[in-house]
């Protein structure tokens, strides 16, 4: 039964031991340990929160970038389209101009040809007139003595002369 009777000496020693251990640990160990753990937990929580914020910011930046990119793409397309249009316009204008120019040249050429032609015809006519006069002179000189042959000759001459 002495197991159930607390020994006074042991009780006192346990009291002393407990108090000493409690005050040593309370002063030197628990604040550092519990404080350290708390600090670490806070740091982890903060880091997680920061990571979350950074993630959100990143997502925002990314979406902004995408908007910018889309805008840039649109602008590029627009610019390309305008360039193409300008190109087409320039080509068309050039073509038009060339056509007008060509037509003008052709008209002028035709006019020149006509003038030349007329000049040539006039000259031919003048030449023919001269020839006729010369021939007539010759004929007149030779055949004035023979009337009949004179007439034949004129006739043949006239036949020979063909305009065109």
């Amino acid at each position, binding site marked *: 039964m002495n197991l159930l009777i607390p*020994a006074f000496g042991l009780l006192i020693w346990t009291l002393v031991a407990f108090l000493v*251990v*409690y005050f040593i640990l309370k002063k030197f*160990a628990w604040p550092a340990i519990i404080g350290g753990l708390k600090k670490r937990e806070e740091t982890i929580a903060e880091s997680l929160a920061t990571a979350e914020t950074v993630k959100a910011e990143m997502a925002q930046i990314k979406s902004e970038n995408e908007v910018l990119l889309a805008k840039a793409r649109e602008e590029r397309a627009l610019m390309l389209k305008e360039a193409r249009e300008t190109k087409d316009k320039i080509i068309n204008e050039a073509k038009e101009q060339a056509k007008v120019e060509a037509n003008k040249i052709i008209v002028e050429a035709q006019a020149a040809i006509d003038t030349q032609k007329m000049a040539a015809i006039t000259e031919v006519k003048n030449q023919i007139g001269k020839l006729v006069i010369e021939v007539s002179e010759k004929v007149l000189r030779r055949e004035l003595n023979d009337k009949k042959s004179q007439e034949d000759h004129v006739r043949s001459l006239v036949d020979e002369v063909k305009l065109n």
Partner: protein
Amino acid sequence: MGATFSLVLLIFFNTSFAGQNGDSTAPKKEKIFDADEVIFGHISDGHEFHFFSYHSGGKEHHVTIPLPVILYSPQKGLTSFMSSSFEHGEKTVKGYALLTGENMEEWKLDSKKYHAGQIIAVNEHGEPEPGVKVYDFSLSRNVVQMILALALLVWVMLVIAKKYKRGEGVKTAPKGIQSLLEPVITFIRDDVAKPNLGHKYEKYLPYIETVFFFILFNALIALIPGSANVAGNIAFTMLLALTAFVVILISSNKHYWKHIFWPPVPLGVKFILILVEILGVFTKPFALMIRLFANMLAGHIIIICLVSLIFIFGTLNKVAGYSASPFSVAFVVFIYFIEILVAFLQAYIFAMLTAVFVGQAFEGEHHDEEVHL
């Protein structure tokens, strides 16, 4: 930690062989295995660490580590000497005698008042003086082992605390013994202190953690073979329960006392309930004391009984003794594992219930939720 344990063991055993080899001059008959004596000798406190005895040259030799005896009596004053001077009850020292089964019979002392292992005052003729009150403040094996366990506890905690102060485990991952104990410390904080003590938990946390580790270290070290049964000693558990009682009383508020002296029940029941509630104030720490004591003691008794079985069978028949030993050892190993679990469990339960009771003392309005363990 492992290194420290083996160091402690080494010191024990080295000293033990260098220590006093007392010899018994009393004529011994054929030594019969006395299970009762062995079991109670192991689980009770003592003035020496006793490892084993052997017979050689017709004498009984005890392999022990003697421990200092410190006595105070109003008549004789303060005395101190080594327990080895008693020579296991054979001699009286400075007017004191150590009681053993034999000299108690010789002096016809009442076994209800005296018990073996107790130190009593004797007169110059070597006869007991019942009138002289003796206060025994000896560094008994429980005291010495408790001091060793607590020195280990304090050392470990200071090492960890130093690491945290340096920022290890705060900015980096915890290492070594720190990572071994950290989950335990956070477990006590998050699952014992926080749920029961609410917003005031930080104030009580050092106390709860200290109680937990105080019990845990003492219970675990008491599992080393040859060591004393500290956590299974009623004085040890009584002190812890008294501390818990004091803390409960200090933390109590007027809601707590109002609930006890004026419970919110009909008038007829009220007076019965007041009695019950007043009783409850004392039964709570009493239950703490008995629960830890019984659990720790039971484990030790089971182990020592299982080992004793070998020798009980052995005295009947040698073959029976040898054939019982494998079963006994297997059971002892099993119980040992359970005891390791029980050490943690009982430390946890004690800390938990202390937290619950302290929480109830200041909680006030909603303190009807009981935790049953």
